[in-house]
């Protein structure tokens, strides 16, 4: 009797623990108006949760103006690939989705329709920025973003006003090489109490999952130079192996970040991006590496002391020959794709919606002011640009004739696992448990392993 009893309890408990184990992790919101959800409609799987409500408004306006229905669904933060894989296999597969570049395209190739004949592609300013294979376009970039070292001019001015500076540099505008940057940063760090900051750089957030600013964005620079200086064909198989030729340059800037920071380098493993943005917003540090998307974050922190006119960009100098002309890292990892397995009519409707969004007056209004995109299409006049200070700076840098902006080659990084491996090695290096040679080795070998199974 007892025995059977316990077996029964075990079965019940096992079942209940299985049930509690699976919980939904995607927040999606349908914005269909009742009746239309029954018929097939264009479904758009949005990547950016922060602008989900703006898209909801857009599809309402679109419905009002054209009578067509688009359903926007949003993947929760960092779950886009999961959500996409799950939804693609259902009868409610997205018609419009996005990939993050060549690697994302390779993964979703079976689902990417040819977009060469779409109006949106025809109006793309820089055709080379699209995902093109054999003369056919499969992904259209829809926004351009830029990152570099963001600095608070109010704080750097305080430094340049000091009498006993040891750096020869006279102002932030004069910095055009790593050596200049280092002399200013190290002297600032030495005088941090006089300037009233905790450190020059905001903490280098190396918590796994929050290390993308280093293993992706910063890593873009040496990898770009490696491909660029060796004349590597970015669409070919030559990108499947790297030597990390400019690893010393990476080390230069990384050392500068972690040694002249608000936080001791051994404690970086639990720091997250939000913390470093908060430090910057509160004026506890002078500089932080990030992109134009960070303005809303900085501005949204209560007690923010950074004013719009004092927030500026500096290119990320790493000590590479000829870097005096280097600009910001400007590019995109957001490419619209249309599901080739959807009905022809739906594919057409999807392309129409996208073109409407980027060409009609009401659509453009939303793109510029609600979505905050720098749209890379010739349908936009110069005046139709977002109004936040960092985005304005990015536009200025794209227009600076004498500067060479660095494209986003990190879209060629073989996988998320590679990035995580890199980030983990960086953390161990910062903590002092491995030396730089091991970091370099990890980068080279992980790149190779992760590339070996790409198609």
């Amino acid at each position, binding site marked *: 009797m007892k*025995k059977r009893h*316990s*077996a029964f309890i075990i079965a019940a408990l096992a079942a209940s623990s299985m049930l509690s184990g699976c919980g939904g992790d995607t927040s999606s919101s349908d914005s269909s108006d009742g009746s239309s959800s029954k018929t097939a409609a264009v479904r758009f799987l949005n990547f950016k949760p922060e602008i989900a409500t703006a898209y909801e408004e857009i599809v309402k306006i679109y419905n009002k103006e054209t009578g067509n229905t688009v359903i926007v669904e949003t993947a929760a933060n960092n779950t886009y*690939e999961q959500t996409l894989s799950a939804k693609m*296999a259902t009868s409610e597969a997205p018609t419009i989705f996005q990939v993050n570049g060549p690697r994302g395209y390779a993964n979703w190739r*079976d689902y990417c329709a040819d977009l060469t004949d779409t109006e949106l592609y025809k109006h793309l300013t820089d055709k080379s920025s699209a995902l093109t294979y054999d003369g056919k376009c499969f992904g259209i970039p829809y926004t351009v973003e830029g990152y570099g070292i963001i600095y608070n001019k109010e704080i750097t001015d305080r430094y340049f006003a000091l009498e006993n500076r040891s750096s020869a540099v006279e102002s932030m505008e004069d910095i055009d090489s790593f050596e200049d940057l280092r002399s200013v940063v190290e002297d600032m760090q030495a005088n941090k109490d006089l300037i009233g900051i905790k450190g020059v750089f905001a903490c280098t957030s190396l918590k796994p999952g929050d290390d993308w600013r280093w293993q992706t964005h910063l890593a873009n620079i040496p990898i770009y130079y490696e491909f660029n200086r060796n004349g590597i064909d970015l669409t070919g198989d030559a990108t499947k192996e790297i030597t990390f030729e400019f690893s010393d340059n990476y080390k230069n800037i990384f050392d500068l970040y972690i040694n002249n920071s608000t936080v001791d380098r051994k404690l970086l493993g639990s720091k997250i991006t939000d913390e470093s943005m908060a430090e910057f917003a509160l004026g506890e540090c002078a500089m932080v590496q990030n992109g134009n998307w960070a303005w809303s974050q900085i501005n949204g922190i209560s007690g923010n002391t950074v004013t719009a006119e004092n927030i500026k960009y500096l290119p990320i100098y790493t000590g590479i020959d000829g870097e005096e002309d280097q600009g910001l890292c400007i590019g995109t990892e957001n490419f619209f794709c249309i599901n080739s397995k959807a009905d022809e009519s739906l594919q057409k409707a999807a392309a129409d919606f996208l073109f409407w969004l980027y060409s009609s007056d009401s659509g453009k209004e939303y793109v510029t002011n609600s979505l905050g995109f720098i749209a890379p299409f010739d349908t936009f006049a110069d005046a139709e640009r977002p109004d936040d200070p960092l985005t304005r700076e990015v536009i200025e840098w794209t227009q600076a004739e004498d500067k060479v902006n660095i494209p986003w080659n990190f879209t060629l990084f073989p*996988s*998320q696992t590679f990035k995580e491996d890199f980030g983990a090695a960086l953390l161990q290096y910062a903590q002092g448990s491995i030396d730089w040679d091991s970091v370099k080795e990890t980068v080279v070998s992980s790149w190779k392993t992760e590339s070996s199974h790409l198609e």
Partner: protein
Amino acid sequence: MKKYFPLFVLPTLIAFTAAFVIPFIMGIYLSFNRFTTVENAKWTGFDNYVRAFGSSDFMNALGFTVLFTIVSVVTVNIFAFLIAMALTKALRGTNIFRTIFFMPNLIGGIVLGYIWNLIINGVLAYFGVDISYSAKYGFWGLVILTNWQLIGYMMVIYIAGLQNIPKDLNEAAEIDGATSGQILRHVTVPMLMPSITICTFLTLTNSFKLFDQNLALTAGAPARKTSMLALDIYNTFYGRAGWQGVGQAKAVIFFVIVALIAFAQLRFTGSKEVES
């Protein structure tokens, strides 16, 4: 009554088939394929399994998980049993203590992971490091966290078991001159075997399948050394283009291991159960 049997069992059967049997079979099938979504699978035979066993991450995760499981099964059950013994004595406030010990179980794994991440980092900060500094910290952090979470639940099962032991057995043993140690070994523990079976089964499978706590506390840092099997499978599946099949293969291997261990454990402890 018997002829209505299919009718009553049908809803459950449909739910069970749709939510468990079909995905399970599809999962096994997909582990032999290369795929992006479940629709575009291409047969690759045992390739995924070769790659799964060939990856050092998976082997590390397996070793870490086994070690972690052994340590936490032993510690959780010992502590839960001791607390249950203490709280079945005629002391004041035992009900309050039972409630308090049980409460951590009601908090979700992710929240617990973040809370303990803060606590452990706060302590380690005095030594100038944090939990990501060494795999040892992550390991013991996970053990502490699991203990804290599971002890209360196991304690409740043990208390129920202890209260079920007829008083006359203890009294008879006492009259026969048994010491309290002998009573514990020859009366209490044998009578408690059903509870022990359940508790070891639960701690074993829970520790083996641990995911949210692992993700929130260490996320594998440093360098995947503290990734357990579930987290490794998750990372393989979602973190690498072209590795979805390998993740699936790892999941099948994981299932086989969990099933074997649970089965062996139930046979073993079950054979020690006695009828009263």
